[in-house]
Each structure stands twice: as C-alpha cells, then as structure tokens.
C-alpha cells in the first residue's frame, strides 16, 4: 500500500507540471510555478526510496528516487522555487504569462531527467527540457537574447544528435538500457570508444563546458536574471549529471579518454579564472564562476576514469556536488540580479557580444569582397589578402577591437589555455 502511494507520488511529480503547462488548466491558478513544483518538494521531504515502472512508455521505462537522486531533486526543487519567485516578482518581465508554459514544460523535463533510470528516459526528458528551455530563455527578449538563444539551440541540436548516436550504440550492445547495466556493458566492446566520445561531446555541448562555453557565457550576458538563474541548475547540472550516469565510471581504466576529460577540466578552470580577472562585470560573475566550477568537476571525473579505484572513494560526493553547484549558481545569479534591479549602475553594463552570426556574416562579407576583388586583377587580390592576413594577429591581440574570431578576450584566453595544455601534454 505504502509502496503504491510512493509510486503514484512519483508519477504525480512528473505529470503535474505537464498538466499545468496547458494554459487552460492553470488559467485560474494564482501561483502556477510554485504549485507545479510542490509535489516534487513533498516527495523530497517524504522519506523512503521508491520506483515505479511504466512498461508502456517508450520501450518500457522506470523512474526511481533513491539517496543520490534525492540530492538532485532537492536542488531542482530549490532552484525552481527560486526561479518561480523571481519570475513572479520580476515586474520588468511583460511576457510572464506566456513564458509560464515554457517554464512548466522545462520544469517537467527537468524532473523527468532527474528521476529517469535509463538512457532513453533521460534522453527523452532532456530533449523536452532543452527545447522548452530555449523557449523560456528567449521569450520576449531583445536581439541579443535571440542571438544567445540561437547559439544555445545550435549546441543543443548537435548535442542531441550526438547523444542519439551514443544511445543507438548502447542499444545495439545491450537490450537493457538502465544506467547500471549500460555502465557494465559498454566496457570492452568494439563500440566502446565511439560511445565514450559521443557521450562526452554531447554532454560537453549540453552543459556548456569549455570549449563549448560560448552559448553559456552569452546567455548569462543577455538573459534577464530571473531566467538566467536557471542556467546553472538546468542545462549545466543536468549535463554533468548525464555524464555521471552515462559514462562507465569505476569499471575500467580509460587512460586517454580520462586524460582528455582531465585536461578539459583544467582548461575550464584556467579559462574561467582568467576571464574572471580580465572581464569581471558583475553580471558575468556567475558565468565565469560556473565555468571554473564545472572545470573542477570535470577534472575529478577524468581522474575517476583514469583511476577507477580512486573513483569509488569519492563517488558518493558527485551528486551532492552537482546539487550544491546548481543551488549556489541560482542563488548567486538571483542575488546579483536583485542588486542590479535595485541599484542600476553604468559599471554593470555588459559589453557588446561578438557572436557567431556576426562572425559568419564577416566571413560571407570577406568572401564576397574577395570575389569582387577578382575583377580588379590578381595582384590587388593578393595584396589585399596578404594585408588581411597580416592584420589578424594584431587584431586578436588588440583586445578592445572586434576581431575575426569570437571575441578578443575569449579568443585570446582560449589560445592561451590551449598553449598551456599543449605544453603540459608534451612535457608529460
């Protein structure tokens, strides 16, 4: 009996936000965001592990809550409560009503990702979460937000594609796609390496870990704080969670793979720290800090992959770490946002974003120009392009001016970090 109640409560946790996402259902409810997260909050407080299986969903899938999951779910509840409060109280947001649908869909996706016990469930709900979050992020935003959203979307699509391939590889190896089974099955098969790299790339993209931090930083830069505070708890934390769940930790030593992850971690730390010191507007503070923190996390994961024995000693820390990361980020963003709201200051104005579309536009312009040059003869073309080539390093080093690459600072630091890594690799 008790078990049944527990199982049903899990179902409600997931279905309730989805139900509220339908505008007609929630039209009379005063606090839809808060109400939607309530079942989850109750379930976090209620003691006892439980699971329930839905044999008819997808290929048959199961959702469960246990000690580890409880940490993450708690974080989710906290972050979303904070976000709901921020959204409700944020007077500056004229699109509140319309964003609520996306808010609730993202929430539902997030809860599903947390509770899923197999790869298909995880993947499905993370898709729901990802695309709805795009809607949440850009709704009613200005051109800058739109551009950030577009970047996020591109990374998301590619990540989903790559993860889908990983999923297929896993599915063709083992029928049962629960985390525990996959973790054991994906060791030592012919497709192991493919699987590992696909999963890594997918989650690095999803979580905005260096070198895919681009979307994350531009999102922090442009999105209003009431939604930006979700960035840490939703895409980033879930990306990290995915990595923990999909990769075969503690089973086998993956030397090269682990090393690469370690290096990514180190690079992220360096990158985040350097950006923090060179470009510390208040608004970007959470961005750089999250990049640094995920760097730490990655370095740990890499170590765990290289030394499986070591992993078992601190494995229990991963979930609390992810949870605290999400909460910390949300709180930080929330605070800064509040500060900015109450005390607008010219110093907080963010810098212009040099984003991908501008970059593409520049290239198209360059191509067009060079084709025009062709009319004037080869010589001038040569001279022109030579001059351009000569200008590039100067521009990159001329930090303030627009450069061909993403942005003066980020490019410079990326190159710097890469150089450091290469030296480290060679000195090994």
């Amino acid at each position, binding site marked *: 009996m008790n078990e049944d109640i527990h199982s049903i409560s899990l179902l409600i946790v997931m279905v309730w936000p989805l139900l509220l996402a339908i505008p007609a259902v929630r039209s009379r409810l005063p606090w839809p965001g808060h109400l939607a997260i309530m079942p989850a909050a109750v379930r976090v407080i209620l003691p006892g592990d439980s699971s329930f299986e839905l*044999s*008819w*969903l*997808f290929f048959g899938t199961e959702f469960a809550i246990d000690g580890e999951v409880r940490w993450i779910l708690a974080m989710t509840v906290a972050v979303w409560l904070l976000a709901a409060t921020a959204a409700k109280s944020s007077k500056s947001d004229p699109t509140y009503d319309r964003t609520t649908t996306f808010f609730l869909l993202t929430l539902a996706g997030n809860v599903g990702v947390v509770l899923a016990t197999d790869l298909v469930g995880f993947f499905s709900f993370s*898709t729901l979460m990802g695309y709805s979050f795009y809607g949440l992020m850009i709704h009613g935003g200005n051109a800058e937000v739109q551009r950030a959203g577009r970047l996020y979307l591109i990374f998301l699509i590619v990540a989903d594609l790559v993860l*889908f391939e990983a*999923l297929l590889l896993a*599915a063709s190896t083992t029928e049962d796609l629960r985390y525990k089974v996959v973790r054991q099955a994906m060791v030592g098969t012919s497709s192991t390496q493919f699987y590992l790299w696909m999963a890594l790339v997918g989650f690095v993209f999803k979580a905005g870990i260096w070198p895919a931090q681009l979307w994350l930083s531009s999102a922090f830069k442009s999105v209003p704080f009431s939604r930006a505070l979700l960035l840490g708890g939703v895409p980033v934390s879930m990306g990290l969670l995915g990595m923990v769940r999909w990769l075969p930790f503690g089973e086998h030593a993956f030397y090269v793979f682990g090393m690469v992850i370690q290096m990514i971690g180190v690079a992220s730390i360096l990158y985040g720290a350097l950006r923090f010191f060179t470009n510390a507007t208040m608004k970007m503070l959470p961005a750089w800090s999250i990049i640094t923190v995920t760097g730490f996390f990655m370095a740990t994961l890499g170590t765990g992959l290289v030394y499986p024995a070591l992993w078992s000693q601190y494995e229990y820390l991963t979930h609390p770490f992810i949870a605290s990361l999400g909460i910390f980020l949300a709180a930080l963003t929330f605070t800064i946002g509040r500060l900015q709201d109450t005390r607008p200051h010219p110093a907080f104005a963010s810098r212009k974003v040099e984003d991908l579309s501008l970059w593409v536009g520049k290239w198209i312009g360059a191509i067009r120009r060079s084709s025009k040059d062709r009319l004037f003869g080869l010589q001038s073309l040569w001279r022109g392009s030579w001059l351009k080539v000569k200008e590039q390093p100067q521009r990159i080093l001329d930090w303030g001016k627009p450069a061909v690459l993403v942005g003066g600072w980020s490019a410079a630091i990326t190159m710097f970090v890469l150089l450091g890594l290469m030296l480290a690799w060679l000195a090994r």
Partner: protein
Amino acid sequence: MNWNAWIPLLVVASSLLPGLVIFSLAEERVRLRSTLNLAGALVKLALVGWMLWGVYHGRHYETRLALLPDLELVLRAGPLSLLFVTLSSVLWLVTTVYAIGYLEGSPHRSRFFGFFSLCVSATVGVALSGNLISFLLFYELLTLSTYPLIVHRGTEVARRAGHSYLVYTIFGGALLLLGTVWLYTLTGTLEFTPQGFLNSLGEEHHPALIVIFALMIAGLGVKAALVPLHGWLPQAMVAPAPVSALLHAVAVVKAGVFGIVRVVYEVFGVSFAAELGVTGPLAWLAATTIIYGSLRALFQDDLKRRLAFCTVSQLSYIVLGVAIAGPIATIGGVVHLVHQGLMKIALFFCAGNLAETLGIHKVSEMNGVGRRMPWTMAAFTIGAFGMMGAPPIAGFISKWYLGLGALEAGQEWVILVLAGSSLLNAAYFLPILHRAWFQEPPETWPEERKFGRKETAWALLLPPVITALMALGAGMLASAPFSPLGWAQLIAQREFYQP
C-alpha cells in the same frame, strides 16, 4: 454463410458506395452528404477494428474474385495490410471532419467528396491487395481518382499541377505494369507471399529479375517520390488542404511506399533481394532522397511546399528501412509508415488552418502566429519535433529502430544520413517554430476570418490536435499492445524468423 470472405470487400465498399451516391447529390444537400461520409468512415473503421481483432486471434479474411482465368482479384487482411488499412481509415475519418469544415461554402463539394471517397477506397484496396495484379488495379485507380482532386480548383496552376502529376504517375504505372506482367510470365503467380515467391527461380533468370525489380521500384517510386521521380509532389500542393493532408502526405505517397515494402518483402523476399544485390542501390537511392528532400525544404518559403519536400525526405526513411534488409530496420521502416502519416497529416492540417483562418501561406508571414492560434501551433510543434525525431514523439521510435537496424546490419553510413537529415529537419522546422512562438505578430493578418472566441472552427481545430496527440501517443505508448510498433514487430517477425 461465411462472412469472413466478404469483409475485406466490404471495407473497400464502405467508402466506394457513399462516394458514388455523393456524386449524384445536389450541391446544397450538405447534411446528407456529411452524414453519408461520416457513416462510411465509421463503418469502415468498425470493420477494420473487427478484422484487427480477428487477425489477432488467428482468423483469416480473404475475398477472391475472378479477374482473369488464372488470376484473381484478392483482398486479404494480413498484418502488413491491416497496418496500412487502419492508418488510412482512421485518418480518413479525421480528414473527413476536417474537409467538411474546410470546404464549407465552397463550390463543387459533391464532386470533391465523391472523388475523395474513391481515393480512400483505392487506398484501402491497395492496402488489402493480396497479389500484384490487384495491387496494380487499385494503384491505377488511385492515380485516376486523385487527379480531379488536384485540379479541383480549376485554375491554370491547378491544371498544370494535375498535368505533371499525370505525366509522372501514368508513366510509373506503365513501368509497374510491365514489371508485373513480366514477372507473371516467369513465375505464373503473383500472390504476395511472406519471404517472397521467387526463390525457386533458376540462376539464369537473375538478370531479368534485377531488371524487373528496377522497373517496379521505378514505377512505385513515382508515388513514393523517390528522387528523381518526386517532381509532381510539391506541385500537387495546389490542391485543397485536406487533399494535401490525406493524399499527399498519407494515402497516395504511402501507396507507393507500401508497394515497395510489398515488392521487397512479399514478392522478392528480403533475403533474396539482398542476394540479388538490389537492396544496396535502393538504400543509396533512399539516402539520397532523404538528404535531397531536406535540402530542398530548407529553401522553400511556401509552407505547404516546405512540408511537401519534407514528405519527400521522410518517405524515404521507410524505403531505407526496407532496403537495409534486416529485421530491426524493417521494424523502423514499417512503423514509420504509420508514424510519418500521423505527424505529417497534423502538419498539413495546421498549414490548412493557417491558410483558411488567417490567409497565411508563407513561412515568412508566420510571425507570432502562435499567439493567435495556440492550439494549432501546438499541434504543429508536436508534428515538427516528431519529424526531427525528438522523443517522445513517434518519429523518435522510427529513427531509433532505423539506426539500430543499420548498426545491426553493419551499415554505419546510414547513421550519418539519419543524423544529417535530423540536422536539416531542425534547420527548416525550428525557424518556423521560432517565428510562430517568439516573434511579434503583425498588426493585421493577410486575410483573417473570425470565429468568435475560438481561434478557428471546431472542425478545423480538432483534427490537427487529435492527430498530433496520436503521434505523441504512438511514440510514448510504443510498447503498449496494439501500438504501431507492436504490429511492425509482428510483421518483421513474420518476414524474418518464421520458417
């Protein structure tokens, strides 16, 4: 009296007879016409349901009528037939409701609904055909009864679209006829048999068989819109929206694809076809079509044309699934037959709603349309994500099995094709969704009709929502009994594992 022998015929007749009666009805007898249509659709659905139940319990339903001294018109309800029959009869019902709403007040409705019913009868006939000659018969009937629907509006553009449709399909039909007769002279039978009936032919006939295969695929490929035989499909979008929805997204094109499925599985037999070496080229053809269709869709501003090219691309998923020639890919291909139908019909209904309610025909006019018509665009969103293969919508299941099947058959390149196609799908669907939901709506719509507080008429709103929910359901409930996936597994099992 053995009723079981007549049920397949009744299934065909349940739309044919109302259709013939409707032709003779006066234009203004709306109620009688709608009643007849809906009654026919419901009767058909009930009969199909009865057959589903029966076949599940091991009964046989087969109608045989003499056609030629040694050849019979055979209508038989096997698992594969039922999959397609169920799809078409369910969607017929939905589309009828939609069409009644869509064509309200427009001229020549008796003619329209008459031919519409004929088309459905032909489609159901195609699905139930138990041998190639019956298939051919209904296949041509489908060509003929669709033509008046394409030229329905009677404009010069419509006439030209109809012309191009005929040029393609009649030519395809001739090739199919040639292949069929040739096959008959070699074997003396045309009966669809699981695992094919050509195994016993000697080595010396293999070159002829390869040519026959090519002829048949070319003939069927016209309707299945395989590149380079797809030219008619985007043009045919000039037809009214219900036609585009049911026929050009489901019935007509599916008849072609279904034919390919039949030919590969039940004429040649998939292992024999693989042995002949014809499945490889077919797979490449399908892959080319997938990518080509998506690329072309990227550059269309006309919404229906974009959807049409998307159809071109998605249809070949099915062909690809067949051509990979493995059990799991078969599941993916066959189940996509249903899934693509559900998703695409929802998309076309939505496009029709936009055109009918707001006068929007182009993607570039769709700014902010999600605020004006949220339910329609929600259905559209589900359809679009399904096409991209996002879980939990039906398209995900198809892609999943196709990908797994490709891995199982050792054809990893297929994965790349699928990934590329998904990427392109995202590239041409997401901008639409972005516009619809996140851009500011214009001051006025091109040609707005008001429906009180509702966003549009009920008859127009319900069909897309219902079909989108079905697409969602087919994905989420994939493991439930009687799901499309379950049937597809049954079919694959019969083709591959039974002796």
